[in-house]
């Protein structure tokens, strides 16, 4: 199955570029294109989109013709870390949610807490302690020293 086109990384790489290019090339003309002399805001994005499509085709075509077993790396790493990835991506979201709702202390705590859960050796106790320590120093540094305008503790949106 390995030789199937669907398993080639560059096939997807080219595809993704074509997708981005297509998006730009289709949406670009919605803004004024203008002429070469008086270029509108849509001119460059459209051009870049077309270039990106062409480059994407080149990458994909290269993948289709490339010999087997050459520089083959799967799209997913050997040991996918779904939990850890999820935790890392959820961490800023937790920061947004708790930061908006409760201020800097809950935001920071949850941000670190959620991120730290992703490690394979994470324990509830260790994660809590880490989050508490980072929160303490973080608030000291960013609220008292650098005076970032974000309430330390509050309740509710607004």
């Amino acid at each position, binding site marked *: 199955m390995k030789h199937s086109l669907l398993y080639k*990384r*560059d096939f997807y*790489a080219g595809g*993704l*570029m074509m997708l*981005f*290019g297509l998006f*730009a090339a289709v*949406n670009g003309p919605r*803004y*004024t294109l203008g*002429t*070469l*002399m008086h*270029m509108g805001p*849509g001119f*460059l*994005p459209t051009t*870049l*989109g077309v270039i*990106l499509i062409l*480059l*994407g085709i080149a*990458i994909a075509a290269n993948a289709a013709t490339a010999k087997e077993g050459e520089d083959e*790396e799967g*799209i*997913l*790493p050997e*040991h996918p*870390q779904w939990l*850890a*990835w999820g935790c*890392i*991506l959820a*961490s*800023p*979201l937790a*920061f*947004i949610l708790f*930061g*908006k709702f409760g201020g800097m202390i809950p935001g*920071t705590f949850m*941000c*670190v*807490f959620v*991120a*730290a859960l*992703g*490690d*394979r*050796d*994470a324990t509830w106790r*260790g*994660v809590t302690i*880490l989050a508490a320590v*980072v929160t303490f120093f973080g608030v000291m540094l*960013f609220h008292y020293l*650098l005076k*970032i*305008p974000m309430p330390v503790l509050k309740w509710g949106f607004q």
Partner: protein
Amino acid sequence: MIEQALTGLWYGFSVAFEPQNLMWCFVGVLVGNMVGVLPGMGPLATISILLPLTFGMKPVGAILMLAGVMYGAQYGGAICSILLNLPCHPPHAVTCLDGFPMTKQGRGGVALAVTVFSSFVGASWGITEMIFLSPILVKVALEFGPAEICSLMLLGLLAGSTLARGSPVKGVCMTVLGLLLGGVGSDLETGQQRFTFGLAELDDGVELIALALGLFGIAEFMTSVNQTGSINTQYAKIRLRDMRPTREDMRRSVGPMIRGTLVGSLCSLIPGTGPTIASFVAYATEKKISKTPEKFGTGMIEGVVCPETSTHSSVQGDFIPTMSLGIPGDAVMALLLGALIIQGIVPGPQLINQHPDIFWGLVASFWIGNILLVLLNVPLIGIWVKMLAIPYKFLYPSAMFFVCIGVYAANNDFFQVGEVVVIGILGYVLLRLGFHPAPILLGFVLGPRFEENFRRAMLISRGDLLTFVERPISAVFVGLCVLLIGVQLYVRLKGGKADVYLPPEKALHPGAEQEAATRQPAPAPLSADATRGATR
């Protein structure tokens, strides 16, 4: 001309020695030195985290500090490579080959001492180059019209994307993507909203800090999480006494030091070839020149000195096009340029005259910073090595907090924090698909200015694209672009792999460290004919 440069430098020292600026320079190099040692935290992520904190500072202090992080990290990276065999910072990966064997022989201290000294020599040369070359470049560049600026940018973008790591085509893709991302938001001339999806928050464009932290923070954490093994620090105990090189060591280092400096400064003059390429080319050159090339990899001091000198010479030299022309050579420089833009300073050839305090203050701070680093490095090595004992499971969650609060502080808005998540996912997908996201930043920072100048050039020439080849200076740049692409195509068609002299991806990643630490140093990724960059 020379007199003018020296007056400028004198003025620069008076700026850099202002207590506040001196302090920021110190903070910068200290933080840089620290993150240089830590695996999984590069100068890029650090600079982007620190960037929002500099908004309240004066531009001079801000740029001094951020630049300090950049070259401070280079000193730290060498420690990592030599003592621990961790090739976690690309420019220093090649130093592992001979640095770690030296450590195993109990000569790690000597390797470090020589490295620090040769780094200083390389950096000094780079700074000297900047002092005398920049005013000349500026004088030429001030004559440039929009067409010349445009083709120069094109050259910078092409070189930055094709000469960096990985496949050139993919690199160009990333640049184009960066240019597109740079176009998001209000159009400069007409004010029309582009690609904002109706979100008012995107009117000002994608936030530079969110982009940088998404691509080099979150995507990087996603790659490294649960991949790092325990770090072997058994060889890392260095006493001051161990650091005294013998006379023989000194004698053997002089030649490589000079050669490394030359390679580094050459690489810094070719846009897009940053310190990583410089160090690999330097190692390959040294191996080729050596009478005993077979001994490389067993702890040859030449194999440590030459790449390290060239790295530093090239790091400082990279500031030349960035500061004098406003064309960054790599992602870090693009970020520094972005920092200037955020401070309301327009980069370009006029910078040196309009803001002499920034330019000459920066140059002077390089000397101060490098001297500080030499002094700091010796007593701090022990502390940095201890910091390596901090497991990644503590490091990355804390870093996530810095990412979040940093992005928030940029605009005091949670929207950008969401942005960073989206960009982080994109960055990780791109990494997995074999793209190197660094050129995105290049395109992103240059994008708006490229578009502006392109439009202006077209307006002046009445829509005639030939203007780019009819104007002689512009034609030279376009010619160089064609040459660049031609050479790449030629190399490719000949069947040679474009990036033979760069180590395989895995060797650069902390994930590989466990393997690498237990085994002998990774088989040399350098082939003898790998001096493509040097011979050209």
